[in-house]
């Protein structure tokens, strides 16, 4: 009964800091309409819907039902999945499970967030344990800053290295009309921007965004009838470390290491650096662009900065990372992971327009969540042989 599954269409909003012109359902509708148009399907073709966001950002706790005017889900099977920062990636994995199980042929996946509607830092704090962590800790940035400090102490990186990643992603965003922030910055500008939490400057981190993304997955029974260039899902995975902020090995993203190893083993990928052609990394701040590619196995521990400085991850380089401009340019949280997935799919399908990387055989998209958990998807041009 198990089926191979592929992405056959994607759609996104033009992401902005505020969308005062639309409500949540209307925002969702924009992404869904574009995905249906991209796949040349209608709502009648959709067998089930998975939707996700982070409840506390909008304070609406029945989004699966509330969103049907936007998602087209009236009297269809709709499920909501929410996993904090990784939500967008987890809903893609959930959609894959539905299709790959053989239970549903065509599944619509929707991630969205209107971060302008509440206190983002306050709502993000709900992703930490109330008894042990939340009294002491607030917001999202300080945990990331602690990771960067630990990495710097271990491997001797500098804030210039981090800034180089930010310069890359912000430059890439110029090619993406959907990105929120589209302004090139220099290394000096990143380093001169206000210090938020040492060593993270304002221009090292993501903004908050209103936006939505939709992806349509189909089984091998119909994928190639819908599009000549389906984006086949080669593997998905996720790992959680244990429960509290202090449990992580600061300076290493162990959940990424474990997830990547599992997926690459399954797909027979032995040299990820050479076999993967593009990565859409859920990278909420610059240093993650150095640290987490080491955990993914692209380069050995401590070699991330050197690889970034070589230009290998820039457009035109050996392994471009975040052609979309990444999370630093745009972060509607419940959509963010799904945007990574959609952008990776567009690269495989040859639909990435001004940000297209040539000849993409394999792409990777990831999701990241506050207390150091990871989701990951391996995409491919060919149908997997398993």
């Amino acid at each position, binding site marked *: 009964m198990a089926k191979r599954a592929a992405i056959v269409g994607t759609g996104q909003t033009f992401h*902005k*800091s*505020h*969308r*005062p*012109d639309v409500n949540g359902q209307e925002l969702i509708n924009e992404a869904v309409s574009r995905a249906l148009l991209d796949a040349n399907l209608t709502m009648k073709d959709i067998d089930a819907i998975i939707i996700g966001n982070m409840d506390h950002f909008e*304070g609406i706790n029945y989004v699966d039902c509330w969103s049907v005017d936007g998602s087209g889900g009236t009297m269809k099977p709709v499920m909501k999945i929410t996993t904090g920062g990784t939500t967008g990636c987890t809903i893609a994995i959930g959609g894959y499970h539905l299709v790959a199980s053989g239970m549903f042929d065509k599944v619509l996946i929707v991630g969205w967030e209107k971060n302008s509607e509440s*206190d983002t*830092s*306050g709502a993000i*704090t709900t992703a930490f344990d*109330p*008894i*042990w*962590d*939340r*009294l*002491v*800790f*607030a*917001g999202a*940035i*300080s945990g990331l*800053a*602690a*990771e*960067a*400090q*630990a990495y710097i*102490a271990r491997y001797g990186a500098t804030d210039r290295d981090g800034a180089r990643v930010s310069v890359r992603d912000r430059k890439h965003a110029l090619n993406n009309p959907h990105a929120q922030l589209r302004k090139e910055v220099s290394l000096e500008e990143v380093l001169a921007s*206000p*210090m*938020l*939490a*040492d060593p*993270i400057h304002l221009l090292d981190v993501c903004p908050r965004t209103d936006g939505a993304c939709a992806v349509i997955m189909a089984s091998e029974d119909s994928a190639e009838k819908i599009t000549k260039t389906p984006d086949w899902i080669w593997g998905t995975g996720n790992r959680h470390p*244990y*429960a*509290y*902020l*202090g*449990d*992580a090995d*600061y*300076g290493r993203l162990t959940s990424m290491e474990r997830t990547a190893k599992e997926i690459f083993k399954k797909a027979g990928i032995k040299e990820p650096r050479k076999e993967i052609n593009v990565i859409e990394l859920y990278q909420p701040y610059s240093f993650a662009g150095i640290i987490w590619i080491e955990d993914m196995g692209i380069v050995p521990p401590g070699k991330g900065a050197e690889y970034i400085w070589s230009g290998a991850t820039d457009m035109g380089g050996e392994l471009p990372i975040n052609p979309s401009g990444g999370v630093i340019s745009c972060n509607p949280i419940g959509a963010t992971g799904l945007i990574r997935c959609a952008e990776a799919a567009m690269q495989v399908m040859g639909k990435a327009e001004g940000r297209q990387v040539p000849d993409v055989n394999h792409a990777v998209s990831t999701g990241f969540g506050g207390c150091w958990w990871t989701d990951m998807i391996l995409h491919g041009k060919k149908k997997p042989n398993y």
Partner: protein
Amino acid sequence: MSNVFKGVEPLVVKSKISVPYHWWAGETASAFFIKLRDEQKISGTWCAACKKLFLPPRKTCPLCFSAQIEWKTVQPVGTVTAFTVVRRQLAAMPRKAPVIYAMIKIDGTETGLLHILDEVKPGDVKIGMRVEAKFAEVRKATIFDIEYFRPAR
């Protein structure tokens, strides 16, 4: 920013609800906080199978899921494994910025305890630095019964 509103009359509905929470600390955390409040002692849970001591304590071993755990008291001294200096004030922060957040690995334990450093200048904090707990004068059975950590004397 302002062009976002061009041509739009942004009608907004303001929330009239607030949803206050209270969380029961639970059996394991309560045992820890009562000992901290009454005896000024820090304790963790030991998994005999994994031979690891966990702080914060847990009802089951997070690695092997064994419920055969044993409480052990540790000395209130440890090492900074990660830190940051938060420069911007957020409403939910427990004190005025700049605040030094640190992960502190208490001697003999497997995992870090998140807390605040004080009696040290932000520029002088180093990973690997030895620190000790300063217990609060008035204790209410929360993590702030340790008022903060400071350089070990």
